[in-house]
């Protein structure tokens, strides 16, 4: 799974020659073998490395603060979203939804690597949401829609339909 993500990310970053990956352990943690150094282990670590390789450091955040925020959501993705229990999904959606209330992207107004990886990681959850739930988590859904339409992001994943008009007008926010 994470290998597909990495290859999509490579394409999104415009990296010309694809890297070779393997996995280790029960969790199938991705490993990047490199010629001129030790292997890199872990989705976030490798993704961060790819961004630097592609010379697009702005995707990791501009200021120290933004960098920390990006790192935080990358960590959130691999610790909370990955393999979460069904019961925790609601909490995650709720938290993301209230966090995104006044933001376009996870790190504010700037699209970053955190958006890409969170999108990959949460896609399977969003696909299963009913229209009503998507409306309930409106901010999160809006963010998701933005990201899936961000040029070059949605590679290996099917698009999720997001209605523009509210169906449930009786309004629970």
């Amino acid at each position, binding site marked *: 799974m994470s290998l597909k993500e990495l290859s999509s990310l490579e394409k999104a970053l415009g990296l010309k020659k694809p890297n070779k990956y393997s996995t280790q352990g029960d969790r199938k943690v991705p490993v990047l073998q490199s010629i001129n150094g030790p292997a890199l282990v872990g989705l976030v*670590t490798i993704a961060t*490395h790819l961004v630097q390789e592609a010379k697009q450091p702005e995707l990791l955040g501009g200021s120290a603060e933004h960098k*920390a925020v990006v790192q935080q959501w990358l*960590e*959130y993705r691999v610790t909370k979203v990955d393999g979460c229990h069904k019961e925790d999904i609601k909490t995650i959606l709720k938290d993301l939804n209230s966090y995104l209330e006044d933001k376009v992207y996870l790190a504010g107004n700037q699209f970053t690597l955190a958006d890409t990886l969170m999108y990959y990681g949460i896609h399977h959850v969003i696909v299963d949401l009913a*229209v009503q739930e998507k409306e309930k988590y409106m901010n999160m859904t809006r963010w998701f829609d933005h990201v899936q339409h961000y040029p070059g992001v949605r590679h290996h994943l099917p698009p999720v339909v997001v209605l523009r008009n509210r169906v449930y007008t009786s309004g629970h926010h």
Partner: protein
Amino acid sequence: MKLFVSDGNPHCVKVLAVLEFTGVKCDVKHVNHEERVVPYLSRPALPALLLPSGTHLFSPNSICQYLIELNGQESSDIVNQWLEWEATELQPAVMQALHMVVLQGKGADTPRVLRGPLSYLDQSLSQRTTPFLTAEMVSVADVVLWAALYPILSDSSLVSGNQTLQLWFERVGMLAACVSAVQTVLQGKGLKAESLKTYLQRQPTTHHGQGQVQGRGTQPCNSPEGGGDDDCVLSEEEIQSAVVTWGKGLTDLPMVPERQHPILPQEGKRNVLVTSALPYVNNVPHLGNIIGCVLSADVFARYGRLRGWNVLYVCGTDEYGTATENKAREEGLTAQQICDKYHAVHASIYQWFQVDFDFFGRTTTKKQTEIAQNIFWRLHERGFLLEDIVEQLRCEACQRFLADRFVEGTCPFCSYPEARGDQCDKCGKLINAVELREPTCKVCSQTPVVQSSKHLFLDLPKLEAELEQWLERSTGSGDWTANAKQITRSWVRDGLKPRCITRDLKWGTPVPHPDFSDKVFYVWFDAPIGYLSITANYTDQWEKWWKNPQQVELYNFMAKDNVPFHSVVFPCSLLGAQDNYTLVNHLVATEYLNYEDTKFSKSRGVGVFGDMAKDTGIPSDVWRFYLLYLRPEGQDSAFSWVDMATKNNSELLNNLGNFINRAGMFVSKFFESCVPAMALQQEDKRLLAQVGWELKQYINLMDRVKIRDALKCILNISRHGNQYIQVNEPWKKIKGDETDRQRSGTVTGVSVNVACLLSVMLQPYMPTVSHTIRQQLNAPPSVTGTLLQGTGNFVCSLPVGHHIGTVSPLFQKLESEQIESLKKRFGGQQPKTTAQPATTPASDPAAQTAVNGADAERARELTLAVAEQGEKVRTLKGQKAEKTVIGAEVTKLLELKKQLSLAEGKDPEPVLTKGKTTAQPATTPASDPAAQTAVNGADAERARELTLAVAEQGEKVRTLKGQKAEKTVIGAEVTKLLELKKQLSLAEGKDPEPVLTKGKKK
């Protein structure tokens, strides 16, 4: 910049160490574990860093990286890699290990879960030539990993091998920043730190392992959904020991003796004296009062009795004081008559709530006078009383001195305009009534005047040193709630002042001193003595409880506003009296319970009061369950009708009730009410271990009076149980071959035993339901005492061949209409209204999300609106109105119809149907897998099964008829068919037998 940290939280070690290491300037604020610093996260997340921009960082590792970056160091791939490894691999293992070692007291050896990560780290270090993880210099990765491992690695008993790792650990630990961070957060104590234990207890019950479906931990779970690696979680030894326990049966376990009054302390037993704050007699208690003291204490006392402790639970009404005098004047009765009347009201309310006092007394008794005067003289003889002139407020209009509660004014500390004469509700400070600015008499609204008279004071400053010594011992060894400790600490820190113990009143315990003959004791001095006098009215040998600190452990239950009187003032009276009194060992204080979004208010008629609860038609047990479920432990909580319905319907009906009912039903339907033979397979053994683990957890929590948290263990067990039944499908297997049938028997037998265990664990919370279950299962009387002995014994208490009784549903659904009408009746606040079509009154948005019932409500309203609009259109057409007019109305009609379809879930988009409350017809597969979780899924699943079975059986009957088979043969098959249909109706909640329908879900 502001950094929020909490005591005992190992993540805070990381950030504090890095903060000091980098020397970045930042305010550090200590908060408690439950403080929600980050506004958008539903669970508390600490540490948290608030940046000047208003952004919060809540990941400890990102906070560390940020601080390092501020210091001008960029993080490299290798640093990132270690941090990611820490968060995803090490952290879950560490949390699990800490849980086992600290909370369950296991492990003389490195916990198994940690062996992998530790040796990986050891190897990585050995392969390096540098002294630190990433370089010659210490990096953020070193500090983060060191802090994560500190609690474990600082304990030499847990470390084995891993030489290089040990050296590295010591090297990093020598940094001054690390030393001081550990000191701040864990008092330098590592695993033994009490604060670490508290922190771990506060973590949402992390299941033992991350792989479990029911684990609700904050830690990541990296296994595929549905778990599959459960094996690695419960160790083989744990499973084996669960099986051994199971095999013991009931016979090996000691019985709990019957209660015999009077209960007196016994040598060699744990003697537990439980008190609940004495409710003031002339107020009908509200739900907050009930959960805060009497109910909480009741649960604990019941639990203690089950554990075989020698428990005495006393309480009573607090009856003296001006308020009573006033009430008497109002009702034209004597003060004593008022007390008699309201004492009976209280007693009957608590009886309805099934609060099982050993004795429920009152303070207006001879014993009270004797004991209070005795304590008074002892204090007097020992020089702990002072005389002083007091300025008091006197209302000339009412011709009397005003008791504190009859004066209102502006708080001299915080300027809150409605401060009471004794305390300000806003800032919580104690006030002398004469210090109030702009005082008014609450009875006549006149301004009272200040008058002087001579009074007696308890010399608290003189007792302060002794008090502090005792407090240190008691809070150190007992289970004081955090708020109790904190309130007490702040009281003592502010310095104690002499406190007046006399009052110019009639209705009170007379002061025996001749110079003060027209005075009575002030209620705060007098009331706690009520605990003693009430016990004295229960037994002449009361001193065996109250002058016996060597043998007796005293638990005081109360709401937090009562803390200072129980932790400072009353102990000072008793210490000063020097008569070997039993002082409180465990002070258990709750926060406040609010009502919906507001406070309970008798005067505004807002909220549910004790005497009204029974008029709601909701059983006492359900009230108890819900109040205990939201017991304000650690933070305020709020009663909400909608939430009550949700909890009833989801937790009691669909989770707990469903499991117990199914387990019993399988025994009676498939095995003629006899517990079948059980051949345990690995999966069954694992369930035994899981349940045993939750049971241990329950006991662990209850022993520490974490009543609300322990209730979750019960619900977790039934969730495990439901899932176990769901996966094993005994109703299917019963129709299979011999092996399948045997399997069905095992699963049924194990399940019904889990149900039996649950009945015992439930006893403190829901005594009636617990009793009903035991009756239905025909459980031997010895189960109640034996399963909870020691660290918990999940034994097979209903052995093979045991005959169970008649099983019937335990809980009833709370319908949304019922809840709405109760809500209106008790004046709960309607949350903000949203714009709605004029015809539909705004239904409560919370209700819609929470119960789904609201959709049904809305559908009903829309149906009416559609009918009305249809009528209008017809009328217009009849009147031959203009086409445009008619057209506009038709458009409206169509719009309404569309909304109706939506509300009814008939939208062409299939996904929408899932919002509906009514059960899916059994033939349509439930559209959303999530909706099928343990809860409703079980019955829907069963309904589907039954539908198939009915169809099959119907076919068979038709075939037989077609073949013109014998009547008896056909008859037998028809009977089967009818039975199946009946079961199907049951599963669909359409039971033909009206008595049974009440418990079923729809």
